[in-house]
């Protein structure tokens, strides 16, 4: 017969202060662990959701972001002749030629400049990104210096709002609308007429060409055509892959940072659990002797103390994850190393992170409790009973 679980609960309750301190140490470790993983997950989720599977992006060979890419007008018009392009509602080909530049804007609060993506669009750009919804104002008129800004930009940067003016490239750009693109990278961009941008920033080519595939299985055809045409010194990627690749370095950095931090921190928490469990054993020598005398086996004692330690880990894990789940309310905005531009994303919790956090907490409990539990189970009945 096993020792009832209520014995463990009561013991933890009797030493409340110790229990609380041990559990809070573990909870903090789990909190840090989960938060950093959530941050990496949020970044990746934002960038993966930005792209659509059926859209393909063409960039200059060797360039990994639109900012450094260049597609000449000639190349763009060759791409326009591809038969794989899907048709839009008005019978037009769903292909857009876009120009992307970075401009420095001042952030609210810190007054520091940050790089923001300025995307020149044409009339098809919005058809290719159905996730973009206008929340305020109107769309810019083509051929004018009107622009629309994403919600993350409107919220975080100074002097951004409807009827405000942005000045760069020797022109004033009038903000006529604010758009929301959900939790995607587009929410951190500014859009306007590409021809105006090309003139103002003296670009004689596009940054990228994007089109929607009629049938998503035709990607390979497009790819092989690009590779065999010497005029097209371009790389082609599916849009979701293109954006997912942009999150790679930063997400990896965050994950490595998170995991190495938590391993170090968890040593502290494991030591905390170990101290608690050793003292729990030391204080209960007589009790252990009594239990053994009553007929409980060594194995029962071992399990009882291990369970107590696992319980500590479990409580710590639950508490840490509860606090971490509140982090989902926070959105942070920082520079993505790979694109050199501002990107807003939030902490995002998924079931995998919950499992990992919980597993981590239980492992801490187990490692902290195993040695004291072995010590307890090895006691000789007579000696234990004699102890005061």
């Amino acid at each position, binding site marked *: 017969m096993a020792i009832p679980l209520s014995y463990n609960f009561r013991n933890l309750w009797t030493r409340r202060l110790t229990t609380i301190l041990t559990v809070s140490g573990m909870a903090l470790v789990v909190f840090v662990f989960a938060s950093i993983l959530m941050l990496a997950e949020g970044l990746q989720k934002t960038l993966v959701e930005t792209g659509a599977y059926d859209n393909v992006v063409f960039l200059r*060979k060797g360039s990994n972001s639109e900012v450094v890419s260049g597609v000449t007008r000639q190349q763009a018009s060759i791409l326009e002749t591809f038969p794989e392009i899907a048709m839009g509602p008005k019978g037009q080909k769903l292909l857009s030629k876009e120009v992307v*530049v*970075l401009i420095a804007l001042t952030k609210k609060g810190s007054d520091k400049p940050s790089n923001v993506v300025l995307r020149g669009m044409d009339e098809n750009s919005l058809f290719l990104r159905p996730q973009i919804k206008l929340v305020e104002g109107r769309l810019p008129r083509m051929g004018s210096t009107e622009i629309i800004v994403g919600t993350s930009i409107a919220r975080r940067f100074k002097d951004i709002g409807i009827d405000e003016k942005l000045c760069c490239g020797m022109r004033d750009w009038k903000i006529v609308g604010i758009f929301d693109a959900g939790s995607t990278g587009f929410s951190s961009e500014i859009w306007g007429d590409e021809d105006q941008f090309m003139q103002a920033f003296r670009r004689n080519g596009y940054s990228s060409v994007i089109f929607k595939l009629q049938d998503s299985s035709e990607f390979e055809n497009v790819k092989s055509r690009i590779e065999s045409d010497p005029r097209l010194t371009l790389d082609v990627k599916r849009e979701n892959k293109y954006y997912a690749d942009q999150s790679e370095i930063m997400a990896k950095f965050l994950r490595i940072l998170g995991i190495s931090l938590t391993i170090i*921190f968890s040593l*502290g928490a494991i*030591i905390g659990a170990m*101290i608690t469990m*050793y*003292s729990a054993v030391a204080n209960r020598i007589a009790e252990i002797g009594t239990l053994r005398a009553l007929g409980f086996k060594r194995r029962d004692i071992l399990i009882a103390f291990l369970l107590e330690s696992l319980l500590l880990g479990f409580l710590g894990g639950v508490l840490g994850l509860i606090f971490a789940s509140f982090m989902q309310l926070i959105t942070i905005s920082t520079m993505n190393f790979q694109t*050199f531009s501002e990107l807003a994303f939030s902490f995002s919790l998924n079931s995998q992170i919950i499992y990992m956090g919980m597993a981590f907490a239980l492992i801490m409990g187990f490692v902290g409790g195993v040695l004291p539990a072995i010590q307890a189970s090895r006691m000789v009945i007579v000696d234990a009973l004699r102890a005061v």
Partner: protein
Amino acid sequence: MLILKVLFRNAFRNKLRTGLTLLGITIAILAFGLLRTLISAWYAGVEASSATRLVTRNSVSIIFPLPHFYKDKIQQVNGVKTVSYGTWFGGVYGEEKNFFANFAVEPRSFLEIYPEFILPSNEKENFLKDQKGCVIGKKLASKFGWKIGDIVTLKGTIFLGNWDFLVRGIYRGRDKDTDESQFFFHWEYLNEISKKVLTLWANQVGYYIIGVARPELSGDVAVAIDQLFKNSLAETLTETEKAFQQGFVAMSGAIVAAIQIVSFVVIFIIMAVVANTMAMTTRERIGEYAILKTLGFGGGHIAVLIFGESLVITIMGCLLGVVLTFPATKVISHELGTYFPVFNVERETLYLNFVAALIIAFVAAIIPTRRAIKIRIADGLRRIG
């Protein structure tokens, strides 16, 4: 002296527990020190910047170039001593993960304006003479095993193609915080090829570095330069090197802030562990405290005993942690050299370590002390175990 002896004896009565606590504090102080060092590594560029240098870039953003002919105009501004310029090349050696900073610079003025890059005079001569030559930092050279005379090929991400450079010199840093992992080559070389392959960048430079005669002139000079190019095709933004570098750090400010917060979390974790130890210690000794009270010692004496013991444990752990920080940073700076070329422990970090240890010791002792003082003599004596 006697009290110190009592404190030490008390601290090591339960060797296992104290040993574990000590280990925990050591790890925490080590982690705290390393995280603070990581943050200071982020600011290394800011720290290394000179007060007599200004950076001029395109006012739209750093990705836009400035015309090469601005050089002569800037030179005429009052207070300007030297003008140098360069372009971020963005080349990759082999794989993308082998990242290091590489710039095309005007070599003569560049070496003059950055006296902290120390290059032997014969290497300098060779580098200046050879347009395909490059100069690399000591750390970079040892990382890839490059020697003088080697040919290094970089793959351009902005300026496409494979670019060959002949290593003509290896510089070392004058100061501790000088970045020894950069790569420089002739701007003329880049320009020659830009004219053919990337006309947008022909006769254009990425930024100007301006040496001013005296630091106090920098404000006026910056304004004068920006005024010069107002309403031109490429308006400029001039700021001190420090502000320029700070702008870079601020862009990834959220990450730095997160590391900063996390570095304090570790202190809280260890606070919980030490508080736990102290709680258990006092719990076991309640009977002794009752006896002390019976003998006439007051609450103050008991408080001194508990706070002192907590302090003894944390300070010892802190010392161990500090000692270990140095070899640990060595290992990390070797591993992460690509991301953080300068990775040194600052004196301030050491002070912060001790402050953290003191705070841990005091906070951890508060609740146990309160309990010990409040216990009534009769209750304390009656209690067993």
